[in-house]
Structures are given as C-alpha cells and as structure tokens.
C-alpha cells in the first residue's frame, strides 16, 4: 500500500520513516533549509524549513511524514515566518556579505534571497567573536557561525573525530573545538575531512585562495537556490 501526503495541494508519495523534508526533496520540491543535509541525521535547529501541519508550524526536516497528512509550505504567512527567522540569524552574527569570500556561493545568503529578505529588520547584535586562523589549510570565522551543527555532525558521524561541539546556552551558545588550546590548528581537523565541506555559511573556509570565481559566475549568481540546490550538493563543490 502506498503512502502519500499532500504538500501545497500536490499528492506526494513517501516511504514510512521519511520526514516531510525527505519526501519533498525526493520529488524535487524545494523547502528552504540551512541545517539540513540528507547525509546526516536531522537537527531541526535553524527553523528555516517551517511548514504548516494541522494549523501548527513544524520543522519539515524533523517531522515524520504521515499518510494523508496535509502540509502547507508555499504560503504568504509561512514565507513571512521564514523571513523573520533568517533575519534573526543575520542579526545574531556578523554577516558582512561584501567582505565574505563565500558571498555568491553562500547557502545562508541564497536562502535569504529566496525568502525575500531586503533588510535585517531587527536591531543588529554585533557580537564580538574571534577568527581562528591557526590551521594551515582552513580558517574559522565564528562571526558567521549559525550553530547549524553540520560540522559537528560531519566530524562525529563521518570523520569519526568529534572535532566540533556546541557549548553554552541561549545567546551564549557557541562552537567549540576539541584541542588542548581550543584552536583548530591544534585539533585533529584535516582539510580532507567532510566537516571541512559542509558549512552552509562562510564560517569554515579554505585558506590560500579567495574570490576565485568572479561575480556573475558564482553558484547563486544566475539562478536561485530553489533551482540550483545546496552548495554541498554541487559536483566539485569545495
């Protein structure tokens, strides 16, 4: 017996055990997301993939698909909610797109375009966070970290190193690195790690190259993320 859910009026098949996000991705329907990556266990932390189910907002990446479920995604109300969530992500960090090497190929930026963000709306927090340039091949700019824990999950579940974790609570939550000094250069992190490849923002960046792709030729310059897909899904993506 086949199981289906109804997403924005469209009947979508799914296999029991899949989430709403899995079902949507499988048929090529884009639900904006940042902390979701199909290679890793769902995290549900960025809240960008909010959809309406039974009059409630739930995250599509952590909610199991159920037979006969009705899901709303492409509505004005949900778009406004997602926009506010992305605006909050922007004001909580220091996301200076003109000064970021990831700009144009950044998933956070591309999602912000998709949700129609013209301004951050909320007062900027302007947090004071360091940059860790201690590693020979990679740098971490904590100003751009949105705590999606993709590097945490990739390092733990794929690289089997547990280089990263999130420490603290609430506004004090921050990414920490497992090394005696707390610096990336003193950790087990290597450029070949999957954790080096999964960051949806410009927080984890390779060194020794910068602004390689001219404006106009970057991943999201020509078409939106709903068409192009995630940065890490790109063949040859860094």
């Amino acid at each position: 017996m086949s199981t289906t859910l109804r997403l924005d009026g469209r009947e979508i098949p799914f296999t029991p055990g899949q989430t709403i996000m899995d079902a949507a991705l499988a048929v090529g329907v884009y639900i904006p997301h940042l902390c979701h990556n199909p290679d890793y266990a769902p995290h549900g932390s960025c809240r960008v993939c909010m959809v309406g189910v039974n009059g409630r907002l739930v995250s599509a990446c952590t909610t199991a698909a159920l037979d006969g479920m009705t899901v709303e995604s492409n509505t004005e109300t949900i778009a406004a909610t997602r926009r506010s969530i992305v605006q909050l992500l922007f004001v909580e960090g220091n996301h200076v797109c003109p000064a970021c090497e990831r700009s144009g190929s950044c998933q956070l930026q591309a999602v912000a375009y998709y949700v129609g963000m013209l301004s951050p709306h909320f007062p900027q927090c302007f947090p004071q966070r360091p940059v860790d340039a201690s590693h020979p091949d990679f740098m971490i700019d904590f100003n751009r970290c949105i705590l999606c824990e993709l590097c945490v999950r990739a390092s733990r579940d794929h690289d089997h190193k547990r280089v990263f974790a999130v420490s603290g609570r609430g506004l004090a939550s921050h990414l920490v690195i497992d090394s005696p000094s707390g610096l990336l250069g003193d950790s087990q992190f290597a450029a070949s790690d999957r954790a080096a490849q999964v960051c949806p923002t410009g927080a984890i960046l390779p060194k020794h190259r910068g602004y390689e792709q001219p404006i106009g030729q970057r991943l999201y310059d020509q078409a939106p993320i709903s068409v192009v897909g995630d940065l890490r899904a790109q063949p040859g993506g860094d």
Partner: protein
Amino acid sequence: MLSRGVIDVSAKPRIATASLCGCFGCHTSLLDIDERILQLVDLVEFDCSPLTDIKTVGDCDLGLIEGGVANTENLEVLRAFRRHCRTLVAVGACAVNGGIPAMRNAFALRECLEESYVRGVGVYHPGIPRDPEIPLLLDRVHPIHEVVKVDYFLPGCPPSAETLWTFLTAWLSGEPIAFSYHQIHYD
C-alpha cells in the same frame, strides 16, 4: 510658496540623496543608469544631494540614504532627511545593516582611533584628532533603521544601476516594486 508638509501635485516629485558613512559607491551606481539620467531629470527635481551640491534638505517626496550612522553629523543629516522626506529609503549594505564600516563594532572606539592615529603605520605626529570641526564618532556604527523609521530597503554593495532604476521607475509610476532575481544581492 507652499507651507511645509503640503505637496504641490503639479510639481515634479523632489528627490534628495545623502551619503552618510558610505563610500559613495551607491551614488556612483545611480550614475551608472547612464543616459537614463536625462529621463530622470525630466521626471524629478533633485533637492539636497551630492549631485546638485545643495547642502540642506527641503521638503521632498523621496530621500535616498547611502551609508550607515557612524558620527554625530550622520545622525543630524539622517534626522533632517526623515523630517523632510515623505518616503525614506536605505540604499546599499551600509545603510541597510552597517556594512563594512560596522566591522569596527568588534573593537572599542579608542582601539580604532589609536590604531589609525597613534600606532598606525606611517603616523608621524601621533594624536587623536579633536578639532571641534570634526564630527564626533559614535561608539558603534548603526544601520539607519536603528535611528529613524525607514520605508524601504535596497540591499547591495552597491545596488546595481538596474536595481535603482527599477525602484525609481516603479516608485514614480506608483506600481508595486518588484525585482528580478538578479537585481537583489547583498554584495
């Protein structure tokens, strides 16, 4: 002569522009509309603007603000624009979120000043300038919507000439403002 706040509908719409803590890149981008500037001056009257060199803002229909708020003069100009402009638009990354100048917010103001005027490379007569003619710096750089009500935002560093033209033509015609995918970017 009309009293303040009364708009003469027979007159051309008046536009004022200002650059606060910006680099004039957004004004340069406006000039990138090229020969369409001739159409624009047929349709609108420019008030206070670096383009006209008029120094004080009068009653206007539209105010375009480039740059964030970094010093006391920026505050004064921004508040004058808000008082005189029916519609106020944040143009470019610095006005929208503080932009590059706001990267100094990660440091104490004294640190920034000492880095530039005391410890900086090539500084021969160290000392933080304190001439009363020079506007005082604020401790932080702010996006303009943290200081006054802003009616519309045009992100970009700078927003392209096409983005500005699309906005201006839609605003002039009273049509809803809609941009193509390529016209909205943050860098």
